[in-house]
């Protein structure tokens, strides 16, 4: 930056030679491959979703290539479909309970790891291991632990006297969603913890020193320094968690595949089924667009929040 600005003004007014102009524009060659890739593999698919969502596209019309234009009909049908509405409700329940669990536990762990103690760094990174494991592996482990007959979770609950009978967690419509939430919260805790910890460590210690001089209690320091100072970071983490959790597909698919009787068919699984199981491409695209629009709004909110932080 300093180098470019230090040129004398007169130098800049000299018309650029052909080769200089080429080298100036050649800067764009650095981003062009990346942009073309994103345009073809993300931009076009998003556009294609919008387009397909306006046609009555199914197996027959896809083969013959003469799918009739139906306008917003696919959307209207979806909004009237109780299965769609139910999947949105499930998604909201899955997401809100999951992030409530992982945020609270992640925050508690972040507070615990905020002060140095022997082994702190190692333990912190070991926690992250669970977050990095493929969801398919995490899902398989929880399937086994939540197994009704030989699962270790039932054994544990009986051991501490919380339960006497046998519970088939993932086969029982009353508990299947809770089972997937448990697994998802387990995966998300270290992610929340690491981000919140980074926030905690950016709070200047001088605030706490001043509070100590004034004789503030531990609770007062938490309530009047930590919480207000953490608000922007916490909001960012919650938004990000919401987006990540709302789009969870693999973990649930591996654990229950959306069952039993659709009680875990969240919106991403519902969308998948329309397109890849029922081959209702038009309806699937409409559901994808709705899912996309919802998350896009949140993503833009998150992007603005991050910029705001940078400017501050």
């Amino acid at each position, binding site marked *: 930056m300093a180098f470019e600005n230090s040129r004398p003004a007169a130098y800049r007014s000299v018309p650029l030679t052909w080769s200089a102009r080429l080298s100036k524009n050649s800067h764009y060659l650095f981003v062009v491959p990346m942009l073309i890739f994103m345009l073809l593999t993300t931009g*076009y698919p*998003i556009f294609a979703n919008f387009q397909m969502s306006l046609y009555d596209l199914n197996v027959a019309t896809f083969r013959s290539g003469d799918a009739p234009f139906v306008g917003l009909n696919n959307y209207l049908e979806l909004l009237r479909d109780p299965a769609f509405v139910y999947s949105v409700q499930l998604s909201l329940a899955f997401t809100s309970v999951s992030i409530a669990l992982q945020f609270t536990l992640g925050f508690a762990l972040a507070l615990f790891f905020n002060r140095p103690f022997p082994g702190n760094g190692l333990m912190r990174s070991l926690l992250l*291991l669970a977050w990095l494991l493929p969801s398919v592996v995490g899902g398989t482990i929880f399937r086994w632990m939540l197994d009704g007959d030989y699962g270790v979770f039932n054994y544990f609950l009986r051991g501490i006297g919380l339960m006497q009978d046998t519970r088939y967690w993932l086969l029982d419509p009353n508990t299947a969603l809770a089972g997937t939430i448990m697994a998802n919260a387990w995966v998300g*805790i270290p992610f929340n913890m690491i981000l919140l910890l980074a926030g905690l460590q950016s709070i200047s210690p001088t605030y706490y020193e001043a509070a100590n001089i004034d004789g503030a209690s531990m609770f007062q320091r938490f309530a009047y320094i930590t919480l207000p100072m953490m608000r922007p970071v916490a909001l960012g983490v919650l938004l990000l968690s919401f987006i990540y959790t709302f789009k969870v597909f693999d973990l649930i698919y591996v654990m229950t595949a959306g069952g039993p009787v659709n009680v875990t068919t969240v919106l991403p699984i519902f969308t998948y089924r329309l397109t890849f199981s029922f081959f209702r491409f038009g309806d699937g695209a409409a559901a994808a667009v709705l899912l996309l629009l919802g998350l896009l709004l949140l993503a833009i909110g998150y992007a603005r929040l991050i910029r705001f932080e940078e400017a501050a």
Partner: protein
Amino acid sequence: MNAQSITRNPYIKTVIGTLLLLVYLFPVYWMIATSLKSRTDIFATPPTLFPIPPDFGSYAREVVNNPELVEVIINSVIISFGTMLLTLVLAVPGAYALARLKLRGAGVILLVMLISQLLPSIVIAGPLFIIFSRVGLLNTHLGLIVADTTFTLPFSVIILRPFFLAVPHELEAAAKVDGCTQLGVLWRIVLPYVRPGLITVGAFAFLIAWGEFVFALTLNTNHNQPVTVALNKFIGQYGTQWNDMMAVSTVVALPIIAVFASLQRFIVSGLTSGAVKE
């Protein structure tokens, strides 16, 4: 004992931390322990906490003598390294230009990248299926490499950019005075300087591609499937043979654990720099 003395003795926190860690990582332990049990042991009540003596039958049956699993592991290796390579080739010049060269629209590109990495894969999977079926990329390694890169590329650009921003301008200026081209500056001067960033991004691209499931499930339905889809199939096939399933899970998790163990400081720093501040 009051709250003050707990926080003053650091070793008390070490003990509490170790206990928390043991509870939290129990599922990972349980996976490994179950994989080392015999068929009768997994159905024991109460469950045996330690698999002593360990039984390697599951590994012999389902890993070593299972050509199908060996094949999907090879697929995953190809796809993960391919994704890592494609991601680096596209992300490095892109992130460098966004950080250092004056481009009109750099802010917009950055915003698009930030939002792209938050999109649900399932939304892109449907149209990709149709595009890939037209150009013959369904059921191929290359197809999945391309699909996985739609996520790893924006993610990597966002993580890499701050690394490029931190390169001293004087370094680049000196190289230019000595007659280096812009590409030469990037290759000879800047890249060695941002090596930690490259390792972070490479490791993440590998980890993400290794664990990817949605694209693999939808785009490679017949051939060249990676380990994640194979593991999901095993669940259906093996029913209640949990020791076999946990052995396969452990094998799928092993590269992740290995990469994490050797590169954890890069991964932890990348995660925080990528998500909280970009």
